């Protein structure tokens, strides 16, 4: 019964995606519908995850589809922190269609069911996967923010007369949010890597671990470039392109670590 919660979630995320698209064409009431779609959908998905956790014996998102479900929840949660303000609605247009599509994939593959056949009791493994997913979700949102920042930078450099009509967040706000999101996500990735090392000391370097270390280095470079050398635009470009590494990692995580 609880797995039926996926329908209101899908409906709300879908509604938010459509409303964001409408709001981009004609800003107004549709923006508020979109915001409520995100809020209601995220609450419903939280209820779904709670139901899954309550019924599972151990870690309930141990399949790749289940981890995708959790990943979507983390992405939307990260977006929700500030994304509901009117000036961030363009970011919603990028995030919500992807969230809705990934959740639909998760549903089709059984990731939203409330009875799990495989369950993990290894706390380190659970921590490793949960923090890795949180970090990947954060990097995804940071990429969206960086894209918005680079676009605004381009409009300012080209002195586009209509820039004020777009009602974008300020350049400084986008820069600060990108850096903060990357910093928090990098912290989560560090914990995930440490948990992985603690769980399997002496484990040989497989492609997934190499990818995770590469992602860590990449995002550490983003922070270094921005905070130590002040190369804001380059850091934003790196945060944006880093999302490719993130998706490869996510795919690797799904195919190897989870059933």
């Amino acid at each position, binding site marked *: 019964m609880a797995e039926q919660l996926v329908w209101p979630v899908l409906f709300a995320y879908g509604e938010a995606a459509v409303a964001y698209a409408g709001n981009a064409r004609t800003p107004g009431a549709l923006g508020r519908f979109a915001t409520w779609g995100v809020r209601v959908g995220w609450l419903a998905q939280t209820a779904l995850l709670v139901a899954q956790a309550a019924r599972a014996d151990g870690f309930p998102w141990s399949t790749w589809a289940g981890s995708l479900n959790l990943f979507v929840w983390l992405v939307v949660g990260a977006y929700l922190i500030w994304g509901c303000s009117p000036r961030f609605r363009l970011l919603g247009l990028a995030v919500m269609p992807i969230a809705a599509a990934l959740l639909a994939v998760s549903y089709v593959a059984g990731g939203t069911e409330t009875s799990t056949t495989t369950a993990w009791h290894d706390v380190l493994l659970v921590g490793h996967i949960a923090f890795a997913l949180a970090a990947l979700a954060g990097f995804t949102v940071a990429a969206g923010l960086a894209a918005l920042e680079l676009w605004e930078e381009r409009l300012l450099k080209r*002195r586009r007369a209509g820039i004020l009509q777009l009602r974008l967040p300020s350049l400084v706000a986008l820069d600060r949010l990108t850096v903060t999101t990357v910093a928090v996500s990098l912290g989560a990735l560090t914990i995930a890597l440490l948990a992985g090392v603690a769980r399997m000391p002496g484990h040989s370097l497989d492609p997934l671990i190499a990818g995770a270390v590469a992602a860590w280095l990449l995002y550490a470079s983003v922070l270094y470039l921005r905070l130590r050398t002040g*190369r804001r635009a380059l850091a934003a470009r790196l945060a944006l392109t880093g999302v490719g590494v993130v998706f490869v990692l996510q795919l690797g995580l799904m195919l190897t670590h989870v059933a």
Partner: protein
Amino acid sequence: MNVLLVGTSHRLAPVEVRERVAVDADRAAALAEQLAADGEAVCLSTCNRTELYLATAEGDEAEQRATGALADLAGVSEAELEPYLYRLEGEPAVVHLFRVAAGLDSLVPGEGEILGQVRSAYEGGAVGPLLDRLFRDAVHTGKRVRTETAIAESPGTTSSAAAALAAQVFGDLSGSRIAIVGAGKIGALAARRLIKRGAELCFVANRSEDRGQHVAAELGGTSVPLDRIRQAIAAADIVVSSTSAANYVVAPEHVNERRGRPLLLIDLAVPRDVDPVINELPDCYVYDIDDLEAVVQETLAGREAEFAKAEAIAVAEASRFRDWLATRDVVPVIASLRERAEQIRCGELAKASGWLGGLSERERDAVESLTSQIVNKVLHEPIVRLKEAAVAQERRGPENRVEG
């Protein structure tokens, strides 16, 4: 009860009249208290308008009192003040207040300060149920207009366009530092706009030290000679340049590495002061007078559509308020209907007390609850219909009046 407005604003009155009827927050609150008598009153006083909103049953008498109060403030007779006054009653008064809160009636349309002033007037007013709801709805309307339209992002002059662009780059301007190059009037005006939004002046670089010191003293910065322009720019986030020099005054060598700190250069001079090559440097954004004009033109073109949207919101909110008032009219009827039904329920329960005597306390509670639920369910439909009929009647009403 009826909503009544007596007031004057920049549309009818010159500044000599407006300044005489303008009052501060304390006096506005005292005036509202005095005018409320046995009704409700709010005094909205800004540099561009003084308006008295009253909720009263005696229209003519209240209007006289309000006119008299404004004449007393101005220190002239009512007849002398008459040409500068407007009076609105009912729905037009409601729509007017909602337009005012939305910034649609402001001297600079879309400005945001008025919303805070409406809120302050409401907080200091002698409000009862009618004006409380009216002003809360007005503030809500103002917020909606600012959220759902780009009316506030429509600068009408190059200096306000410069300030809006600065906000686009830095967001909240508090903490942003300005350097003025050339202490002319145009540069000072643009700097004033930025300071009004929270920025602070750090340096005024000018050829003539006297003039530079004058502007620095007025706006709160330090005057430096023009050859220290590099130091001024290094400290600044926003540079406003408006000299009468024939060549570029701000060259790329004057700009230090910004290390991720944006620098917005506003060039208001013709011929231009800022070398356009600076725009190619990382984190530097140069806007000359033509760019600012283009921003103004673009926003003016979009402003008409935004105005239409904002007007529609104000009218829709006024309509919502009218519906609320209409249902408020039937509240006494609903209350007496409920009271009568409750009397019948209690009477019938009392009659049956002999039969119910044998019930336990829990069972008696269940009977109480059950009968209450039946009464509520029976009354629900007629109450809804009553409210709908009141709204429909109000909408059909030939006078379209707003009375409570």
